[in-house]
């Protein structure tokens, strides 16, 4: 993996996105200013429809923001690129490629030498616990395994920044705990800059170096809470749930998110807040 670049990786300046609709313009987000230093794991929590995904899509380069701009390593983002990998909520791994070839895809596109591809794929298959499933097709895998493939594929391409939009929303609760632990150790070890969207406060605090809380639509970032890293190698749920400092942060973030929900009753659609994990 490439060594981490120092400084600000992602800068979101004066950002706002407004959709045109039949009923007139809709503010997908409020004004957002955000700086993500290189190597930081940032999670973003907020109520449904607050514009989290819009912000992520803009950083990925899938949408052109109507206001402001986004910089990656100081250069304006003009479209998707291999410096910013994305793990989609809707398992975007290709059903006609085996696990191995899905994970190798980014390196194939980059025309990496055969040995490098094989070595990287092998290492990621081991890291993500997919050993023995290399030659399976996605439809032969469980939801959790598919998600591992999606994560491994993004990591294999070795982007500086990884954007994740509720990647674990569709897997069962037990698998999710394991995937979160794996993601924590993977990202800490590879020193990636990660921007991770979630509904779950526990997940947000567990994974993050910094948790951002977004207000209801049109969303702005209303709070930024630092989370200290206790162990450099990763995190595990057992020590996380017994760590009173960590639990205090969880409570604080939960309170901030709940304010957003209770302040506006009409928008109180069920949101998976998962206070107890």
């Amino acid at each position, binding site marked *: 993996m490439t060594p981490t670049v120092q400084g600000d990786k992602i800068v979101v300046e004066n950002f706002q996105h407004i959709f045109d609709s039949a009923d007139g313009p809709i503010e997908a987000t409020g004004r957002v200013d955000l700086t993500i230093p290189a190597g930081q794991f940032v999670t973003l929590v907020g109520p449904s429809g607050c514009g989290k995904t819009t912000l992520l899509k803009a950083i*990925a380069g899938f949408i052109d923001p109507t206001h402001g701009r986004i910089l990656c390593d100081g250069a304006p983002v003009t*479209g998707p*690129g291999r410096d910013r990998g*994305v793990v*989609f909520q*809707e398992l975007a791994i290709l059903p*006609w490629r085996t696990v191995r070839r899905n994970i190798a895809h980014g390196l194939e*596109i980059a025309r990496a030498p055969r040995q490098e591809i094989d070595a990287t794929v092998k290492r990621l298959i081991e890291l993500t616990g997919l050993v023995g499933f290399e030659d399976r*097709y996605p439809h032969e895998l469980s939801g959790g395994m598919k998600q591992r493939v999606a994560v491994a594929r*993004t990591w294999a391409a070795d982007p500086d920044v990884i954007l994740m939009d509720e990647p674990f929303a569709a897997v069962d609760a037990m698998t999710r705990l394991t995937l979160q632990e794996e993601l924590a150790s993977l990202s800490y070890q590879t020193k990636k800059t990660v921007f991770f969207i979630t509904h779950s406060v526990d997940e947000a605090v567990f994974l993050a170096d910094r948790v951002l809380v977004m207000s209801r639509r049109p969303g702005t970032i209303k709070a930024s809470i630092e989370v200290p890293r206790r162990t450099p190698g990763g995190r595990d749920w057992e020590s996380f749930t017994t760590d009173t400092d960590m639990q205090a942060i969880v409570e604080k973030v939960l309170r901030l998110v709940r304010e957003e929900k209770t302040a506006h009753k009409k928008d109180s659609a069920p949101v998976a807040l998962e206070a107890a994990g």
Partner: protein
Amino acid sequence: MTMAQASHARAVPMHDPFRIGGFSLVAGKFSFLLPFVVLVAIWWTIKIAFDLDDRVLVAPPDVLGALWTLFSRGILADYAATSLYAIAVAIIFSACVGVPLGFAVGANKYVARSLDLFLRFFQGVSGISWLPLAIIWFGFSDTTILVIVVYTLVVPVIFNTMVGVRAIPREYALSLQTLGASRLRVVRDVYLPGALPSILVGLRLGMGYGWRALIAAEMLVRQGGLGDLIFGARTFGQIDRIIGGMIVIGVLYIIVDRLIVQPIESLTFERWGVLRK
């Protein structure tokens, strides 16, 4: 019947009421022959029971005799080759033209939306209904036949390619772009394999429609081909030759479909699973 008996009855395979001793026409390797055997038996029974004249219906052995005559004199090969050549040219032309057109239409949702009804309309206007115009424009020629068959074939190919392209989740292409893929690469790695099952369905349907249209057009244009063969036989009341020709028409269709199209189709469907579910 008790519950236990009921569930037991359900568990018993219900597919073999024709088993006689150790030999079964239904479950065995040659089970596909059974309906044909039944049909020939009914045909022969009717012929004998009603004591039908040979000018109305001939016995099965007479058809075999006629087929042998046609075959041994090379007449059958000549007429069949004309038909097979026409359908082959039409399939290749339709694939070369229909698939790119389907892609072009499917890739743009506005074009797809505006052409949907248009394509459905022409799916309804059968190739044969173009025959009067085609004969006026191109005379009683091979061109007329080819125009009719290509038209019949190309519409389902365009339509199914379009549907196939439209059905590919957007995230597939987006995720590949974040891996650094060019537009061409996305077409090669996502749109082509993603739409392939649907393209094959289109070609398979098109071939079925095209084959029927071909026989019909040959009957009217009278420039060779199996349609010409059986229509010509009518003039001389050669019922054995007509039925023999019909058998050849059906058998050739099955051979092409079973030996060429179906294996490709099942290969992609079985391996990629999810796409067709």
